[in-house]
């Protein structure tokens, strides 16, 4: 007998843990792996509806809409393998390019501006791919809510909200990054939730599957846009919470805890990182031809691109300069001399000749090398004027000195002298092309040549201002390097020695992307969207068409849905606070209520509400240009919250009704009424996504007549 008992208790620790974990959660049936038939049917229904709504009239309009001009173009770049630069990581655009490639698009359409007709070009593959991913959001949200609330009506409500939201439909129908981003984002949330519900059988196959899927999706979300960072944060917080719970469980030995910890490190940190780096590896491997993005990167990197000036060439080890000088004086004739600006792209006006400060080197004299600490003069090759600075204030940065081109045919004055210094070197050392980071100090005033990073107005060709800063401080803005270098008397070197490693390329491209992102500042006169506009659906985005005769598509959320979401956030706050206080005060509740409330409202709803906060609040602190569509990830969370909150609310209140049949009827009736309301509002507003032709909404004969509920909507 004891032997048999011992034998049965063999896998004891694991099973015991399992049952213990189970007791915490109420005995709900969905823990069984196979969903009941009703749920499967519902899942099938919402998936079908979702796909139908996203693919309906997908080819319309057959011209470039809104940001398709960017992302379609970037897809083409991948197909043509030309190097480009974008502020977002590459995965989304690579997938677009892949979809185009597989569907037979040849990358020849220029995507010049919105409104260009596609003609014979095959764009449906790319749009279809985005629509496919966009359609997956609905079943993902459905499953997530089902897992969190264990309630079919809540999941259905969420699914219907997303299916019939005009904004989600519109955003999924075009070649954009957002459907791809949201796909990975919801995928991460779903796998995280699924993984949490597998917590009672850790290290099982499904547990590993969901955990690693979470990691994969995180990498995907991060790889499409940096906004994916917020979902990483959400998953991170959830994991910390999870680990904290495990740590407090004294039945787990520290070794087991260590295993849990390592499993998460492996799946949620190492796996995504590897995938993320792999994406960049593919990106750089595919794009091997020189293209429009070269100028954003360092010279060493450019030397790797086929077709770039620096590719496979050899240049002498000194001289040359990435400064451009255009022969336009400052407006108003403030000073003699020419404007000096930095210019991000390479052209002939960027070339300067290095001369000694006291003599004009003629071509016969022997080569002298420039050394650290030398005093030099820089003569602009095209216009033969010297780089000059004086104590006048710079055009934009008033506290800096102005930098101009001065003198005729290389004769100027003592304000043309610059001391050349290599960062981190001793005096007398040679200066090397590309590798030496140099600083130019103005001899007369002691200021340092730098670019202020501000864009000059029209008269300066919107190039970047160059100033001489009197504040002697080490900033990246005052560092220069020699790039092109022409000197027939010197032996040339091959640039292959400079080949950067993959890690260096990766770091550099991130620096460039971050700089690019923060550089996206609103221009003058540009109407920008404010984060507080978004939840109230204050103003949409014109995707296509302006005039009455155009086929117009307007990205705007279904107002009924969005306002319901907004209202629900307030409602949820109220419910959550009262539940928390009631639990804290120990108000007499049946244990069933207590478990239900704390599990659904505080845990499930809390997770979703946290997701909403994380995807919304950071935008208030961002300095860059913001658009309405940035809210859509948060909107997904908000919709899930709506489903959970209304389901709980209706369930809670209907329980007080006496016969259980009435209670059930009220509960179900409430949900059905909400769904009908959403469907009806979609019937009203569907032309927003499926195209409006004819007069504007202010005209009574328009299909949208009377629907322009807010003056700020532009349809």
């Amino acid at each position: 007998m004891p032997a048999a008992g011992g034998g049965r208790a063999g896998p004891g620790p694991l099973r015991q843990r399992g049952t213990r974990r189970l007791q915490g959660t109420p005995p709900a049936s969905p823990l069984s792996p196979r969903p009941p038939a009703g749920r499967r049917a519902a899942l099938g229904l919402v998936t079908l509806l979702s796909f139908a709504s996203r693919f309906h009239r997908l080819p319309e309009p057959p011209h470039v809409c809104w940001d398709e001009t960017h992302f379609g173009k970037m897809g083409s770049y991948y197909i043509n393998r030309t190097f480009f630069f974008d502020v977002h990581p590459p995965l989304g655009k690579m997938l677009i390019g892949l979809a185009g490639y597989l569907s037979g698009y040849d990358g020849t359409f220029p995507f010049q501006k919105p409104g260009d007709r596609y003609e014979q070009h095959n764009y449906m593959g790319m749009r279809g791919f985005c629509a496919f991913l966009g359609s997956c959001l609905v079943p993902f949200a459905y499953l997530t809510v089902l897992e969190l609330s264990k309630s079919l009506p809540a999941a259905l409500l969420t699914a219907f909200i997303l299916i019939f939201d005009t904004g989600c439909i519109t955003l999924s129908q075009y070649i954009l990054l957002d459907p791809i981003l949201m796909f990975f984002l919801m995928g991460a949330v779903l796998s995280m939730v699924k993984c949490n519900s597998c917590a009672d059988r850790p290290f099982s196959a499904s547990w590993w599957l969901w955990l690693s899927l979470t990691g994969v999706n995180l990498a995907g979300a991060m790889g499409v846009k940096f906004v994916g960072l917020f979902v990483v944060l959400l998953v991170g917080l959830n994991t910390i919470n999870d680990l904290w719970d495990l740590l407090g469980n004294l039945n787990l030995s520290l070794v087991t805890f260590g295993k849990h910890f390592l499993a998460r490190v492996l799946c949620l940190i190492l796996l995504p990182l590897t995938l993320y780096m792999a994406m960049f590896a593919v990106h750089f491997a595919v794009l091997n031809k020189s293209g429009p993005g070269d100028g954003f990167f360092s010279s060493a990197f450019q030397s790797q691109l086929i077709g770039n000036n620096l590719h496979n060439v050899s240049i002498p080890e000194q001289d040359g300069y990435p400064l451009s000088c255009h022969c336009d004086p400052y407006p108003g004739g403030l000073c003699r001399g020419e404007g000096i600006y930095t210019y991000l792209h390479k052209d002939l006006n960027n070339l300067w000749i290095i001369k000694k400060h006291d003599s004009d080197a003629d071509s016969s004299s022997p080569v002298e090398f420039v050394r650290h600490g030398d005093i030099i003069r820089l003569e602009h090759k095209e216009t033969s004027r010297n780089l000059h600075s004086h104590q006048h204030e710079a055009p934009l940065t008033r506290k800096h000195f102005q930098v101009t081109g001065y003198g005729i045919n290389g004769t100027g004055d003592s304000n043309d002298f610059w001391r050349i210094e290599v960062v981190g070197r001793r005096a007398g050392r040679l200066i090397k092309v590309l590798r030496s980071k140099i600083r130019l100090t103005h001899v007369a005033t002691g200021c340092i040549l730098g670019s202020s990073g501000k864009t000059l107005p029209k008269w300066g060709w919107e190039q970047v201002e160059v100033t001489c800063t009197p504040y002697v401080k080490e900033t990246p803005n005052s560092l220069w390097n020699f790039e092109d270098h022409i000197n027939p008397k010197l032996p040339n070197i091959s640039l292959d020695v400079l080949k950067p490693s993959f890690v260096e390329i990766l770091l550099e491209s991130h620096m460039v992307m971050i700089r690019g992102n923060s550089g996206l500042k609103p221009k003058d006169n540009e109407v920008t969207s404010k984060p507080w506009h978004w939840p109230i659906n204050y103003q949409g985005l014109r995707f296509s068409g302006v005039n009455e005769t155009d086929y117009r598509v307007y990205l705007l959320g279904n107002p009924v849905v969005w306002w319901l979401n907004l209202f629900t956030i307030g409602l949820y706050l109220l419910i959550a606070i009262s539940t928390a206080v009631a639990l804290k005060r120990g108000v007499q509740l049946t244990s069933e209520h207590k478990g239900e409330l704390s599990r659904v409202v505080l845990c499930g709803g809390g997770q979703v509400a946290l997701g909403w906060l994380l995807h919304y609040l950071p935008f208030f602190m961002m300095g860059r240009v913001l658009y309405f569509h940035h809210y859509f990830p948060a909107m997904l969370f908000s919709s899930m919250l709506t489903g959970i909150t209304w389901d709980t609310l209706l369930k809670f209140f209907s329980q007080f009704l006496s016969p259980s049949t009435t209670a059930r009827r009220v509960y179900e009736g409430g949900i059905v009424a909400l769904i009908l309301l959403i469907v009806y509002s979609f019937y009203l507003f569907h032309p927003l996504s499926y195209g409006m032709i004819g007069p504007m909404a202010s005209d009574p004969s328009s299909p949208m007549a009377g629907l322009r509920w807010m003056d700020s909507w532009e349809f």
Partner: protein
Amino acid sequence: MLGFLKNPVVVTAEINLSLVALTVMGLMSRLWGLSYPRAVVFDEVYYGQFVSLYMKRIFFVDDSGPPLGHMLLALGGYLGGFDGNFLWNRIGAEYSMNVPVCSLRFLPALAGALCIPLAYQILVELHFSHCAALGAALLILLENSLITQSRFMLLESILIFFILLAVLSYLKFYNLQRHSSFSGRWCFWLLLTGVACSCAVGVKYMGLFTYMLLLAIAGLHFWHMLGDRTLSNVGAQLLGNMGLTRGLALLVIPVAMYLSFFYVHLALLYRSGPHDQIMTSAFQASLEGGLARITQGQPLEVAYGSQITLRNVLGKPMQCWLHSHTNTYPIRYENGRGSSHQQQVTCYPFKDVNNWWIVKDPGMQQLVVSNPPRPVRHGHIVQLVHGITTRYLNTHDVAAPLSPHSQEVSCYIDYNISMPAQNLWRVVKHNILHLKLFISACYLSHCSNSESLLFTFFFQWKILTLKNEDTEHKYSSSALDWITMDTNIAYWLHPTSGAQIHLLGNVCTWASANVAAVVYTCLSLWYLIRRRRKIYDIPEDAWQLWVSAGQICVGGWVVNYLPFFLMEKTLFLYHYLPALTFQILLIPIVLQHLSDHLCRSLLSKSMFSALVVAWFSSVCFAYRTFSPVTYGEPLSVAELKDLRWKDSWNILIRKQGR
């Protein structure tokens, strides 16, 4: 009847002599030789302007913060009999005889000195030993940067004083909570918390961080109270009262106080001044001088035929008047776009005869005011005639010179037949007049003070949000530099001798404060994880002490420091001082904890004490070493070079360098 005479009248006084001694030492360190240097030091040049404006009662709006701090500085000037006549134009300028330097600098110095007993009391209220409290007070006393900042007409020491006062009063209140709720002292400390918070916010917006921290801590304590089942018998009534009093004292009173600062500010300043322009016309008209001189006796309502000027109310970057002159738009702009070549209409920021327009009824030909005058009402259609050139204000479907998406506005000239005149305008009161031209209500000569209060409020907010220019200064630093004190600020330099004053902290204290923060964090994490596994290293009450001290000190450091990483304004080392104060308070807390709980044996305890004594003498040594640049004593070049402990410090050495 004379029963009270039966017992002798006894006064028992309990005087904490060490507290008294600390206060006296503090006063000495901050007040000694206050009028030296008799020259404008650093930001005095900035605050001094406001003090002068207060003395002269001239209206201004400060774009850097709320008015309480300036008013306190001005109070010093008022008590010293300052007449406001000094030109604050240059750092290092010698003060003239009419400037009461000592009394101008007195209040900040006093506030700085009082921080020392406050620090002592805070540690006592956190239930740490007398010895730890003494240590905290001494560290604050010997902190060079706090001394420098206190001894001049600057706001940080006042801010730190109010912050510490708020923390202390909250702690006193919380400690009284257990046994004597709703007693007189309980109410007093609760009220003082609110008042000190609002004063801190009123001095500088930075005070908001500490206010938020205290609100969060109060919320947390209240949440614990909610869960206290022993209170459940007493019922919700008491809890409700508790919540209400807290809400009143910590939310309502601070807001009311804050508004009252602005009320006093407006009540004091009744003369027109340099910042009139950013206020509404109606407000300007309520000031003595300025616009009021013009609007005095003007008719209130605009009628057909009235001559008016139109001011763009919320214009950026400055307010301006609708203006026209005989020049026309160029036929072609530089970028090739065409114009209507009609008379220019511009917005002109100065008063000018060309700003005058006449309101005309489109249905009538003559421009005279009918008798009785017909007032222009909301929604009426009018024409605007330019007074000097008698041309109509016109707009048409031609792109504006700089904003191609908007229509051009011009004064219509008749010769161009191809473009019909479109010169009818609808007056929309308080709203856009077709092209964002507002009709300014400049005919109100009376304006109640409450209204203007809101206006000031609004404009201050607007200026704050608008301000983003000029993020560079010779002594500006980034938030990351502060921890290691990589930069200093030269406050003042004697024109001939080498005497100079720098904002430079006590190196030893800064380093130890950083170490204390790291030790605190690591130990807390360690304890937390161990407690989670049900291993209790320290007794429960010691843990509670440790946590509550951390809430205040580490919390105070975090909220006063981390937000600067998100700010885009120009940052200076002195912005770190409030955070530093909290970090310094943490040092004795960590030390006492280490000695109480980690030094188990008597030997290790005495070793530890010896180490602490050695460390403290190094703090004193650092204080002595840097006190010449704190107090501005003359130094030779060699001595100055010795003081340059870090290469990044900017100690000014004459006739040296390039």
